[in-house]
Each structure stands twice: as C-alpha cells, then as structure tokens.
C-alpha cells in the first residue's frame, strides 16, 4: 500500500469502518510510514478533543414536557363533543388493552359513563392548557391585578361576561387573565397566585351538563370544580388539593360576604 491509497483509508480506519483486510494493510503501512502515522494520530487527537471540549447538548426538561403535551394533544384531537366521543371510541376499539377494558365498562354502564369520560376530558384539557400556557410563557394575555381591567378585557372577547372576584384579602392575588379553549368553546381563564403557585381558573356559563367530579388529579395537577353565580368554575394548580378546593368554592360563592 502506498500513501495515496492509505490517505482515503486512514479516516475509515480511525472511525472503525475499515474491514478486516483493510485494517491489516493499513496497520502494516502505518508501522512503516511516519507521515501517515502522524496523520492518523492527528485524527485521533482531534476526536479526543472534540469529545472532551465540544458539548453534547441535552434536551431541556421544558422541551421534554412540551413534547409530551403535544403527543398528548395529538392523541386527543378535541373539536366538537360528538367528534370527540367518536374518535375516542375508534381509538378504544383499535387500541390498547386498557382501552378495551374501558370499552367493556362503557358498554355495561352506558351513557352515564360516557358523560363521565367527557368530563374527565375537560379536566385533562384544562391541565393541558395550564401546562402549555406555563411552559410557553403565555400564562397571561392581560396582566393586571385590577378586576376592573381584567373583566372588560375578557368580556370584550367572549359572548359572556365572567365575574372576576378580588380575593386579595384572602391571600389570592389576581395577576391577570387570558383566553383559552375548553370543550370546543372559548373560555375565560383567570390567573391567581398564592405563595409562588399559579392557579388557573376556567370560568364559563353554567350548563345543564353533568358537572365534573369536584376534585381530581391529572398528571400531578389538582383540578377542582364548583358551580355558583351562574358559572362553572374549574381550577387547575399544583397547589394543595384543600387550598384549591376551598378557593374554587369561594370563587363560586360570589363576590359577596363569605
């Protein structure tokens, strides 16, 4: 082997891509040729430096969470309610073991279970919105601690006017609001803060639908529900369940005396 032949093989050899025959002949050549041996050494040295000095970036935790949320959303396309149940059924019948079990259960218990599942979806959807807003840093579209700023902003963008209670006295600071989509409809989201915890409160007109379970935990977040003042109040937060429940009930009781 001459130096020209060796030149193209040295890199492949250093990368562990040379076959047995090539390895044998290149090794023989490197022993006898200082020029090519130096080239080989340079390559190994460069690799060692790259692995020591050039950072291998790891995916940030926030990205990992965002990816989970988007895969989650893809799993659950949520336009209209009928479509949702249909998709869910199709997914169930096509799918996983757990899905099959749930299908059987649904057959037995009937429509009540379907209602319950839809409510569960609202809670999951609310948590997904909360997580997405927190990670995407768009928790708040109208930032104000003044209920008289937040309320008109929301009312102007919705076909209803959500009450915006001021509970500063009780330790819950209003920090703003935003618009979200819940169950296929635009909904007002009030953002409160207590001791470094954000609480998202989704407020929408009370409906005849079966109310969601009063308290649930979805992916580590507590979801509390209450009805009052003509509205449905759905709170999502990582704050403790008791605090969240009493806060949501307090909101639902209205701005009057407790």
């Amino acid at each position, binding site marked *: 082997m001459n130096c020209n032949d060796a030149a*193209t093989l040295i*890199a*492949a050899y250093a*990368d562990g*891509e040379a076959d047995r025959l090539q390895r044998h002949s290149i090794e023989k050549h490197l022993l006898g040729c200082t020029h090519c041996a130096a080239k080989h050494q*340079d*390559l190994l040295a*460069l*690799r060692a*430096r*790259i*692995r020591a*000095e*050039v*950072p*291998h*970036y*790891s*995916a*940030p935790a*926030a*990205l*990992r969470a*965002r*990816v*989970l949320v*988007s*895969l*989650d959303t*893809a*799993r659950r396309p949520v336009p209209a309610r009928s479509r949702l149940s249909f998709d869910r059924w199709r997914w169930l019948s096509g799918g*996983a073991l757990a899905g099959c079990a749930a299908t059987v259960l649904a057959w037995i218990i009937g429509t009540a279970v379907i209602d319950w599942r839809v409510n569960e979806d609202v809670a999951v959807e609310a948590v997904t919105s909360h997580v997405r807003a927190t990670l995407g840093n768009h928790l708040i579209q109208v930032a104000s601690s003044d209920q008289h700023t937040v309320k008109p902003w929301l009312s102007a963008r919705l076909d209803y006017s959500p009450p915006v209670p001021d509970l500063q006295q009780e330790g819950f600071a209003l920090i703003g609001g935003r618009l979200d989509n819940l169950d296929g409809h635009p909904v007002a989201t009030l953002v409160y803060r207590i001791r470094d915890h954000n609480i998202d409160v989704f407020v929408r007109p009370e409906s005849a639908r079966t109310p969601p379970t009063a308290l649930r935990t979805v992916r580590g977040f507590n979801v509390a529900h209450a009805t009052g003042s003509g509205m449905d109040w759905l709170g999502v937060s990582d704050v403790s369940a008791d605090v969240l429940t009493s806060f949501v009930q307090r909101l639902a009781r209205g701005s009057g005396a407790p």
Partner: protein
Amino acid sequence: MSDPNRIEKLVLPHLDAAYNLARWLTRDGNDAEDVVQDACVRALRYVGSLEGTDARAWFLKIVRNAFYDWLGRNRPKEIVHDENNAVDTAVDHAAEGPEHAAVRKAELQALSDAVTALPMQYREVLILRELEELSYKEIACVADIPVGTVMSRLARARCLLQRSPLLHAIGRQTSRSAR
C-alpha cells in the same frame, strides 16, 4: 396509522440526540426546541415509514428535515453558504469576544466555536459522527447522501477544523487578554 403510544417509545429515548443535532444545526437553544417539537409532530405522521430502520437514525433524519424546512422559513439566506465566508465570519466574531474571558475557558471554547463556524453540510456529518457516534451508513441515511459523500464531507470537516484559524488564534488571543 398514528400511534402516539408507540411514538413515545420511539422518540423520547432519542430526545437528547435530536436536541443536540438541532442545537448544533440552528446554533440556538430556542430554535432547536422549535425544530425538535416540530420533528416530534412529524414523527407521529411518518411512523409508518420506520419499518426495520433504526429508530434513532430515523428520528434524526426527521429532525434534520424539520431543520431544513425551518431554515427555509426563518433564515433563507443561510441555505446558500460560502464555506470560506462562514469560517471568516466566525473568526471576527471570536476576535471581538470580551478580553476578560478566562484564558482556559477561551481555549476550551475555541474548538466549539470552530465547529459552530463549519458550513452546515460539514457540521452535520461531524456532529453525527463524533458526538452521536453514528456509523457512515447511518449518517448516509440521516443526511440522505451516499456513503462516499459522508466520507468526503467528514474528511473536509476535519480538515477545516484542523486548519481553523480559531484554533490557531488562541495563542494570539491569550497573549492579548493576558496583557
């Protein structure tokens, strides 16, 4: 057929590799996150094309495609690049770095800067080979080029690094910042 449960198993273990590639291609953390996020959504769509291929190479290929589409949308000028320019610009950039920067840190940083300054087509094969430790065949699959081209680009990338003025500029820089 989309199957998010399967996708999670395919994609999540390679999220670091995906982010690393996107980070080196975009040269920016936020942009890299957007590219990876997009790639995950695409992966869901293309999961049917996986048949028998290695999941990591398959996903990295999607990341790379997502990156080039992102590049077309956000920095179309970079698609046409002059390799000499790319290296020169980076030299200027390094030269104006803060003089008080620790000497040792500057030395460690120099090679990263030189890699960052490589033209895209060389940077991607180098990252895939040296940081992700992919085989020539896998790199050929990810970058959609023949194995021969992988070898020539890799050789060119290494040659550019070894000759990079950034690495040789260290001596000058250190003597300047020591003053």
